[in-house]
């Protein structure tokens, strides 16, 4: 340090930009720095490699039909992962997203089918309830200062109980929905796109990610979400009202869970209070594999989209290769551990 020219401050403002030492860095170092700068590259590389690998194993894998099927399969969990990403970006975690989604789908279905409320209004009420569940989580986290993990562990159970209560543990059947509330199945609508068969649910997932991308990178709100997740004390001292930001994150996450609920009705076709029991953990899996740090403030919102696709590709690829389902779990498990290990390594980057 002492004998190299220090690039900190030069008295002549106009002087040329100082150079940092680059030559001494090894390839590993440079990789670490590169990934530090572009954390989404890890999931992108994993996705590309797994696509190539499964494409070589099974010839059918690369068909437009199969690839679009993967998109359909990840649409619901992917949308849910968008909500999860927001919370994880603030260094929290939301264990209740899956339960909220099922609860909202039950609310939408109940209002429309059992109470005869016009379907669009039932949907709006459902989305508002989603915001309400987020607001409850947010209040508990910001006002009572409870850890998000415990808060949402609690509300997960509460929302599940409400869900069983409101549904009477009964499934609203597909035919009933078709007859009385077909709009609820809107996101299950299929369309062809040059051999690929997509659903509106896939489009919804992509729109949710696109909107979040805009909000997180192009608005002040997004920068504040990152700042609060990165270092809440610093953010507060820099003049950010951290509680407001956290609160808004939970509410937005709740609304997205509501959208995922609507999308899930289209995907499943019916409304079952016992569906998507593993959606919580699957959403966290997508976020973690997508390279968003569980410690908050780091990672790109597009990562979880790719993370969800990676899980989908592994499941589809292994199935096409005729491998037992248990190996899908096995592979997902290692992916999670790999993703977190990479995150830890990237965070250790030295300047």
């Amino acid at each position, binding site marked *: 340090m002492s004998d190299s020219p*220090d690039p900190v*401050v030069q008295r002549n403002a106009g002087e040329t930009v100082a150079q940092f030492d680059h030559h001494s860095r090894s390839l590993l170092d440079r990789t670490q720095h590169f990934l530090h700068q572009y954390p989404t590259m890890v999931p992108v590389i994993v996705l590309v490699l797994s696509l190539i690998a499964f494409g070589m194993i099974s010839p059918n894998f690369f068909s437009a039909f199969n690839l679009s099927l993967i998109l359909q399969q990840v649409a619901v969990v992917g949308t849910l992962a968008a909500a999860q990403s927001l919370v994880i970006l603030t260094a929290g975690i939301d264990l209740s997203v899956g339960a909220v989604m099922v609860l909202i789908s039950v609310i939408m279905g109940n209002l429309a089918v059992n109470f005869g409320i016009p379907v669009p209004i039932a949907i709006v009420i459902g989305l508002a309830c989603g915001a309400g569940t987020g607001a409850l989580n947010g209040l508990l986290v910001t006002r009572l200062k409870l850890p998000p993990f415990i808060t949402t562990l609690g509300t997960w159970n509460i929302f599940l109980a409400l869900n069983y209560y409101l549904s009477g543990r009964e499934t609203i059947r597909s035919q009933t929905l078709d007859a009385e509330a077909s709009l609820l199945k809107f996101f299950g609508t299929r369309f062809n796109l040059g051999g690929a068969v997509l659903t509106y649910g896939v489009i919804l997932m992509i729109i949710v990610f696109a909107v979040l991308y805009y909000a997180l990178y192009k608005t002040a709100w997004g920068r504040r979400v990152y700042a609060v997740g990165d*270092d809440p*004390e610093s*953010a507060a001292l*820099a003049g950010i009202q951290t509680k407001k930001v956290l609160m808004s994150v939970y509410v937005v996450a709740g609304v997205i869970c509501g959208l995922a609920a609507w999308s899930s009705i289209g995907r499943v076709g019916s409304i079952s209070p016992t569906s998507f029991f593993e959606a919580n953990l699957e959403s966290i899996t997508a976020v973690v594999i997508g390279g968003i740090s569980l410690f908050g403030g780091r990672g790109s919102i597009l990562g979880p989209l790719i993370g969800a696709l990676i899980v989908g590709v592994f499941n589809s690829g292994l199935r096409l290769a005729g491998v037992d389902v248990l190996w899908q779990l096995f592979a997902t498990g290692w992916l999670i551990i790999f993703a977190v290990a990479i995150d830890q390594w990237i965070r250790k980057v030295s*300047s």
Partner: protein
Amino acid sequence: MTEPLLSARNLVKRYGRVTAMDHADFDLYPGEILAVIGDNGAGKSSLIKALSGAVRPDEGEIRLDGKPISFDSPLDARKAGIETVYQTLALSPALSISDNMFMGREIVRKNFMGKFFGMLDKPAMDSFAREKLSELGLMTIQNISQPVETLSGGQRQGVAVARAAAFGSRVIILDEPTAALGVKESRRVLDLIQDVRSRGIPIVLISHNMPHVFEVADRIHIHRLGKRLCVINPKEHSMSDAVAYMTGAKVPDEVAA
């Protein structure tokens, strides 16, 4: 004599049975560098937190330009033109220099996208950040959008000072700006402080480093046992005097008299 720009009278702050500030006074005059020194636990940080809005005093009065003011949060103090560079710097390491400089007061585009979709005016923010950093001779930083955590300690300090200088229209408070820095980097921060002062903004400098204090300060506020013991002129007192006053080993003439 000119009126103090920022002053405080009889500030009291109690934490349970501990009295952190015991009728503390404070005066900062226009255009000066005022150092605040004191032993650990003397109540310096409570005083500074009260002035920067991070703590609400239980009693007492703070005046800016002779008018009484009260701050509920650092945001209020900032709105009044008082910027603080905390010892922790209050930077978000993963965010860019530009993001950090505008944290909490981002510039939104003037057009439709800005008005209805809150789109940030990144080009304007970047060029403003670049301009402020160059003003303070900090433009050796390569890329305004590089994350703060990739900067050295001195560079980070520079960014925090530049942020305060860019927005602090009235007063800049620096809490231990050189404590975490090496000799060379400290040097640059001290130069930076004098640069900012030469632009007419008075500075409150909290520091443990006597040579630094004696080098840049116009007056030295010595804090002891929760209140202002005395204010000395660094040209008339030695460093060992200051330390003696601070620790109570010696009583300054003004107080004894």
